[in-house]
């Protein structure tokens, strides 16, 4: 009897997570500014840092995939929850018979899904236009999937900070996310980094995504591919913990 109730509750929570995912997709992600941001920014970054730098096509695509996944997955999290708070719709979600975990998972999923789809664009450009040969397609899919989830949860940490203004979140979010580009083996390979920079790079979630994508696209990386995948899984869980704590803190503070 209790098992049956628990199963029903689990089914309910899954259905609710899916409902929130679809709603977020329609309300936030499938909007022209978001689509433009998700697709154009990574190309802009890529060309900014790659032109006249004698970068091979495969290396360029690997970088572009990592950047696209990182920026698209981690961008919406800091925006959606403060916006929902401002519009009052956050209360609607929090008052619904749904656990906080379900809400966080739903919002992680939607960010990850968007990033996963967005990363298909540079991948298709590479495959069709530049004739890039992917060394390990399964590893690439697994890497992109896990990186999307981990980065989406990373963005959610910022979004969960108890404030109502999007601007208050964007500043710390930008200050932390952008420097990661320079210490994660994207523009300077890990093998060429100074020891202090290499030590710093291990603190960046983007390092492991770039490395596993390098394994998948180029057939070689700096770290063990399984270590990369494992760290991304751990980071997904680790990022959800402060997000949940910050949400609980919001309930105490009244945001």
């Amino acid at each position, binding site marked *: 009897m209790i098992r049956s109730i628990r199963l029903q*509750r689990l089914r*309910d929570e899954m*259905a*609710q997570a899916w*409902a*929130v995912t679809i*709603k977020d997709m*329609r*309300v936030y992600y499938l*909007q022209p500014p978001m689509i433009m941001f998700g697709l154009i920014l990574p190309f802009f970054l890529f060309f900014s840092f790659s032109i006249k730098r004698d970068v091979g096509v495969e290396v360029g695509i690997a970088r572009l995939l990592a950047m696209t996944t990182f920026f698209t997955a981690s961008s919406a999290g800091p925006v959606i929850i403060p916006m929902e708070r401002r*519009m*009052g*719709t956050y*209360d*609607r*979600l*929090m*008052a*619904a*018979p*749904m*656990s906080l975990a379900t809400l966080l998972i739903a919002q992680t999923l939607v960010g990850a899904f968007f990033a996963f789809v967005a990363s298909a664009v540079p991948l298709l450009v590479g495959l069709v236009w530049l004739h890039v040969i992917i060394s390990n397609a399964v590893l690439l899919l697994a890497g992109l999937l896990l990186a999307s989830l981990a980065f989406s949860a990373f963005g959610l940490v910022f979004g969960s900070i108890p404030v109502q203004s999007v601007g208050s979140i964007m500043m710390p979010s930008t200050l932390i996310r952008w420097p990661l580009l320079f210490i994660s083996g994207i523009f300077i390979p890990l093998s060429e980094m100074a020891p202090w920079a290499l030590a710093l790079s291990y603190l960046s979630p983007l390092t492991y995504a770039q490395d596993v994508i390098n394994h998948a696209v180029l057939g070689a990386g700096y770290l063990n591919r399984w270590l990369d995948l494992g760290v991304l899984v751990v980071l997904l869980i680790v990022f959800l913990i402060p997000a949940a704590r910050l949400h*609980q803190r919001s*309930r*105490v*503070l*009244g945001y």
Partner: protein
Amino acid sequence: MKAAIEVHELTKYYGDHLAVNHISFDVRQGEIFGFLGPNGAGKSTTQRMLTTLLEPTSGQILIDGHDLARDAYPAKRIMGMVPEESNVYIELSAWDNLIFTAQLYRVLANQRNARARELLETFGLSEYRGVKVENFSKGMRRRLTIAMAIIHRPSLLFLDEPVPGLDAQSARAIREMIRQLNATGTTVFLTTHDIEEANQLCDRVAIINHGQIAAIDTPERLKAAFRQVQSVEVALDPEGRLDRDALSAFSGVTQVIKAGDKWRLYTEDPSSLVHQIVRFAEENGMRVIYLNTLGPSLEDVFLKITGQEMGTVRHENNERGTKRAKMGGRQ
């Protein structure tokens, strides 16, 4: 009968500020319970704690017997909530908003469409079902918010200031809807600053002030308990010969307020005061052109309890054959 809401020693601190101070009350199944209070009294804080949006510092809340601190899930399933600001997704249509809410509350898939259609019909939104809510008027958004709050047929509905800012027609329609919902067994917790609304709708009201429950009873009993806020309204001709000092000199008058072309004199003994006024008019060659005795209104009780000055209100509604008040502006 099990209470719909039981609150024991509920307390909320924001930092060092005590917003809600050890309040206890219960709301019976099937009643419309009004929660009144001036700005900053703690009414919204209390409602947010009751709806699980805010964590109490201490105290206990039972919703239909379920302790919110232990497991809010069964309580959330039977609650509906209409916040002060209409919280709809403006990028979605009315239909999509309703269906999303039905999904959140796990309304069975084969019932969702029928209920959404029924609610759109009830709230006069059928022809706008596919229109994005960003194109809706304030009144339409309000109606949609209420429709979303009841799509899962909650047995307990929280309404926070449901009608302010709406035109008279929309406000009346929403009040009628509240009565209908209550008639079908829904318990209603109505947070409002509109005293006349509470007077018309509520079986019982609680008045909260400075984070504490100052009074809780039926509107009529509360009025009866405040005999000192009975009053006499008078207009004499010629008016120019009447002033505040002369009226204040009458025996038993506690306060004198100018109300348009009339004067309102508060007293515990209206009968004696009427005699004094008539005698005064006769002695001074004046004519009584208006004289009316008024029992304490819920507004008088509210103002007395919350310590606000009487006469700071706009008088626009009729009650018991005389003009009665609704507080002007937000509280």
